[in-house]
């Protein structure tokens, strides 16, 4: 099944991978069975020393080429700074390395790490770091607790491979995390990861501000909202739009992509999904267990996942938290833009654009038109107004002014002239294609409305007589003539 998805170019790499996987299995049978408890076998000989390359999101340091464990020196600086959480909205973030999420750290299983945490002298508060990759008290939190202007150092051996969250664990912990103090550290398995063309770093976080979403200016942290777990912002990489517009992630059709996905929380669990893609592989919860053909993967607060897929065709693929209001109303949305050749066999695109008009059965008038015959002209207008609000106002708005360039105006509209057929047809038959209203071109779709002849007449009379101050009267029989 997997082979089916890969082009011939990748079959070679894939079989190499299979082979190496097989070899790893053979070896692990003897000493490193994943099922067995304890990882002391990773206390291996340390050869050489190097300084870790740290990267800012969405970038990831290059894969580790070493075939042995080494001493890795990591320098991470804590910086408190004010920057935008959305356009025009700023927030005081507490960061690891000046970004939210913090710098991406990449080491190898068995590496011996010397970790330097530096708390910038201009900072207001003490900070520390709890790395979930660390086996030991507080994940290093106690050992790295540093006042502003001070540095703390500790050492650890990376016993378990996987993608781990790190975060600040200084009281009040919730507030430190809510202000952006989290990031990811990848402990590459000894056998390495499958070679891919593109790797990206995406981390979700929820934010709590005194002003609601989009309220401009410097917004202070709102503790009460944080305790109630009601965020104003749920974002990828620390800002609404951190992965859209000019910050869009880019790949070419045919490339393989790996997303290192983390969730800093502090509160929400993410249902991570890429609209228009299926993850070929997911390292569940960032561990060693690989699942396949996944639509949405759960990323716990303080947890991670690695997703791998091939972008077979061009298009914009949307990264979302599929708890979907977070995506469209709170910012948890990013774009992976893929260029290249289309493959109509995989995806045709829209082949026959058109409107779906419900069948005659479904669109059939529900009530007999006689029902409204007995109404006085005033009652008819009142009915028209009521029907307008139910059927028309959603697009053309209550006042009939419409929405510029999208929904044409019905009020003071030159579309409502003496030719009542032109006014009746869209209501009973639907309308699509370009029209000109008050000199402005519109090209949208209007579905036909499920109104009786008399109801259609009533609503059109309301539009004619009230919105356009016209004496034109539409009768049910006029509607009947136009209805197809």
């Amino acid at each position, binding site marked *: 099944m997997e082979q089916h998805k890969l082009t011939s170019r990748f079959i070679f790499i894939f079989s190499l991978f299979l082979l190496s996987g097989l070899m790893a299995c053979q070896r692990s049978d003897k000493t490193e069975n994943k099922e067995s408890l304890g990882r002391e076998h990773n206390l291996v000989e340390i050869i050489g020393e190097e300084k870790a390359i740290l990267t800012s999101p969405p970038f990831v340091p290059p894969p580790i080429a070493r075939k042995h464990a080494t001493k890795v020196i990591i320098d991470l600086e804590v910086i408190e700074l004010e920057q935008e959480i959305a356009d025009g909205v700023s927030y005081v973030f507490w960061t690891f390395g000046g970004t939210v999420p913090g710098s991406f750290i990449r080491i190898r299983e068995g590496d011996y790490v010397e970790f330097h945490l530096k708390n910038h002298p201009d900072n207001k508060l*003490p900070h520390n770091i709890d790395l979930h990759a660390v086996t030991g008290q507080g994940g290093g939190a106690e050992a790295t607790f540093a006042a502003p202007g*001070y540095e703390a150092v500790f050492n650890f051996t990376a016993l378990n491979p996987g993608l781990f969250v790190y975060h600040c664990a200084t009281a009040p912990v919730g507030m430190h995390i809510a202000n952006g103090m989290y990031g990811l550290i990848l402990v590459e398995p000894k056998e390495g990861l499958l070679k891919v063309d593109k790797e990206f770093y995406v981390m979700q976080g929820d934010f709590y501000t005194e002003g609601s979403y989009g309220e401009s200016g410097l917004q202070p942290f709102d503790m009460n909202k944080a305790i109630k777990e009601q965020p104003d912002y749920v974002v990828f990489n620390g800002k609404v739009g951190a992965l859209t517009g000019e910050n869009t992630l880019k790949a070419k059709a045919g490339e393989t992509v790996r997303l290192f996905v983390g969730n800093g929380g502090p509160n929400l669990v993410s249902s991570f999904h890429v609209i228009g893609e299926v993850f070929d592989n997911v390292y569940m919860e960032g561990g060693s267990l690989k699942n396949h053909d996944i639509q949405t993967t759960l990323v716990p607060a303080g947890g991670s996942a690695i997703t791998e897929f091939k972008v077979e065709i061009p298009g914009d693929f949307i990264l979302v938290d599929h708890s979907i209001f977070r995506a469209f109303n709170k910012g948890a949305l990013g774009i992976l833009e893929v260029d290249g050749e289309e493959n109509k066999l995989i995806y045709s695109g829209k082949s026959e654009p058109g409107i779906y008009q419900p069948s005659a059965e479904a669109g059939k008038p529900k009530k007999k038109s006689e029902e409204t015959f007995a109404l006085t002209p005033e009652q008819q207008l009142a009915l028209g107004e009521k029907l307008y609000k139910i059927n028309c106002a959603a697009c053309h708005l209550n006042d009939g002014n419409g929405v510029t360039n999208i929904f044409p105006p019905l009020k003071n509209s030159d579309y409502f002239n003496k030719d009542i057929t032109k006014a009746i047809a869209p209501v009973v038959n639907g309308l699509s294609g370009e029209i000109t209203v008050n000199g402005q071109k519109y090209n949208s779709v209007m579905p036909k409305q499920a109104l009786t002849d008399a109801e259609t007449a009533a609503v059109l009379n309301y539009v004619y007589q009230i919105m356009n101050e016209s004496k034109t009267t539409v009768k049910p029989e006029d509607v009947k003539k136009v209805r197809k």
Partner: protein
Amino acid sequence: MHFNRIIFIGLGLGLAFSSLKGQQTSYSDGEMAFIPGGNYFPFFSGKEDQEKVDPFYIDRFPVTNREFETFLADHPQWSKKNIKSLFADAGYLKHWKQDSGFESDITMSPVVFVSWFAAQKYCECMGKRLPTTTEWELVAEAGKTRPDGRNEEGFTRLILGMASKPNPATHPEVGKTLLNYYGVWDMHGLIWEWTYDFNSALGTGGSRSDSNAENTLFCGGGSGKAKDVDDYAAFLRHALRSSLKANYTVSNVGFRCAKDADKP
């Protein structure tokens, strides 16, 4: 005509007097406020842990750069040049000029980059001492209009808002942030302050058997026992204090002095 002139002079005198008086209430070197004491409940523990606080005096303002400079003139062994490395690390008075003195714009700003030893020595030389954490917190609890401000609308939020703003390039003058019920300025939002027993929160507390519970306060950063888990500002202060050592000099840690009420 004559009358008018007298009235005019009288008015002038009155104005001069009131402005002078205004100045006195806004700032005076080492001026102290009386704190009647009372019962204090540490924020991280239950009701059984209340502490009795005797009446005391506390400085109405944090010690300024100018005051500290005056102190150094009389006690040169504590100057930037002479201080023993045991008593302060290399950052001591880092915001001052190379040898001594400082830019005039920070004259009335609180002195920072001072170690606990230097702060305690300063207070001793003034016939005072550093306030205990309990005393300091008792004063800090006061709102604008009453001794326990935590029930005052927006008080906690105000403090938290100030605490989470970034450090300014230079600290503003003392006496500009918040004047509390006791007539004490700047307990919140200007700087952090040394207390006499700043490092006791992590200790196993000789008189207490529940040292375990207190330790979890900082290991996990939260305490299940906390009487007010919403008092994040108090958590911030306790975290800050526990990150310090007595020879540390930090860009936003200064101090004020206190003394027992029976020694006026």
